[in-house]
């Protein structure tokens, strides 16, 4: 029995900016309903990798495949249309807009015809609120309220609910819990699990090992633009993962280098 192709796969992806090589031979696979946690310290190349997946950059070499099919995008909208949704660290939701308008920015529902198409506020609000409540956030009940009044965790959840609603197959989350407190982070992680349950492939980028271990099925550690380690849940302990992220040195070696 053959396995279905992974939802998203990178094969030997390289990315350089002029003389600077940022990504080296990245190969990753994420299956349906799985969460891949991409761990790495700052400067490891995470944001370039995300931007390449999101369609902001084109790989210098290598392939990106969706359901086994080669992809090529010219701009972020292409990636979105194919079903790769990226939720960035800070917003991407518009704080001064209402929840309904923010949810449907760019794809506003309209009623009427010709040049007199009117933005269907009632429908937009109704759908947005329902989508968010389906994900377990019951506090939001009025689509006219401003996004800026939501907590950080709620805004991330809104962004994720939006991505799922518009048919995302792959969800790339860029440090979603970085700026959040414990309770809010738990909220977001719950929503990631919900997305998993709905069959999305999730790439969860973070430098917080605890959060990664809470939702991850599969882990990859990015060091200086290359995959330094690739393992499934349970194969490594928390300390081992933290060491890997810190550049492969164990805590002991680190202390020795500092001169303790």
């Amino acid at each position, binding site marked *: 029995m053959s396995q279905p192709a992974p939802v998203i796969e990178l094969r030997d992806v390289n990315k350089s900016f002029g003389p600077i090589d940022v990504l080296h031979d990245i190969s990753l696979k994420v299956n349906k309903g799985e969460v891949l946690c991409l761990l790495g310290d700052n400067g490891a190349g995470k944001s370039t990798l995300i931007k390449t997946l999101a369609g902001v950059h084109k790989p210098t070499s290598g392939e990106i495949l969706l359901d086994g099919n080669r992809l090529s995008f010219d701009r972020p909208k292409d990636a979105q249309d194919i079903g790769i949704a990226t939720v*960035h660290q800070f917003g991407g939701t518009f*704080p001064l807009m209402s929840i309904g308008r923010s949810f449907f920015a760019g794809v506003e529902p*309209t009623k009427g015809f010709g040049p007199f198409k009117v933005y269907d506020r009632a429908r937009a609000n109704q759908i947005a609120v329902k989508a968010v409540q389906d994900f377990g956030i019951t506090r939001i009940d009025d689509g006219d309220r401003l996004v800026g009044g939501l907590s950080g965790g709620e805004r991330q959840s809104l962004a994720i609910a939006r991505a799922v609603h518009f048919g995302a197959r792959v969800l790339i989350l860029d440090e979603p819990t970085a700026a959040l407190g414990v309770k809010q982070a738990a909220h977001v992680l719950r929503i990631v699990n919900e997305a998993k349950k709905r069959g999305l492939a999730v790439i969860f980028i973070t430098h917080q090992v605890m959060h990664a271990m809470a939702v991850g099925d599969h882990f990859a550690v990015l060091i200086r633009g290359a995959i330094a380690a690739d393992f499934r849940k349970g194969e490594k302990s928390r300390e081992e993962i933290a060491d890997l992220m810190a550049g492969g040195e164990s805590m002991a070696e680190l202390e020795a280098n500092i001169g303790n």
Partner: protein
Amino acid sequence: MHLIAPLLRRPAAAAVLSLFGILIFYVVFGGVNLGTLAGAASWLNFAANLGIVAIPVGLLMISGEIDISIGAMIPAGSMTTAIISGYYELPIFFGMLGAIGVGVIVGTINGLLAIRTTVPSLIITLGTLVAMQGIILSASKLLTGEASVAITAPDWSKFIFGQLIGGSHQVIIVWWVAIAAIFWFVAHQSRYGNWIFAMGGDRESARNAGIPVDRMTIILFILTATSASFVGMCQAILFNSAQVSGGMNIIFNVIVSVVVGGVILTGGFGSVIGIVIGTLTFAIVSQGIYFTQIDRNWSNLIIGAMLLIAVLMNDTFRKLATIGSLSKK
């Protein structure tokens, strides 16, 4: 309280309060007769000329950019009309086309520079402002030898663009109302309006959401420049002449009207109704003072104070709007 809160959250809230504040101030301290004020045309004419430019500039600011070249575009519009149809005596249609055309060209240049370079729009439009001032003056001297040109427009064009209704009210007031209605529809009822707010909120996210950010930016810059040249054109037709100077004050007048009206400088928030009310408020402060016993030399002081108070109110209301989004647990 529950009825008032949603009203205060609207961008126009502070503008309405400012308007009432000024009226009350002028009545109590200036002894103005509201009836006389209402019937007078001076402030309404002033408001219309200012307002037609303020609305697209306000929308441009909501989208996250700014355009100060409008200060040169009004005389550009009036001079183009006057030179083509007054000095060269071509049919008025060509003069009008020229005025609009100049607006489209300058707006396109502004827009292209804004999207193709990383130069902030304040600096770009400062450059075009200065350059246009030079171009208008040198073109005028080159072609006509004068700094002011006379024009006598045919009756039909005067009827549409330059007549005085009842001998006092400029017909541009009707244009202002019509333009305000159209822009209100686009900004608040159509999808394009949502796009403008999205661009101002987070340009990159808007682009990623598929909104044609570059195209919208150019269109908005064309609208600001053209609305200014349109006002200039109407002035030339109404007053039968055009001058090179004038128009510099309007830059700050527009910004004040727009900001009092609830638009925030950093973009993403505001409303057309707010801009209209902000314009009315500015016009009443600036021109209504003549109907009071207050010495008109103090008008700028009142404008300055009003601007700061209105902006503080806007700020407070907006914070309330975001906090107020939290419903009871």
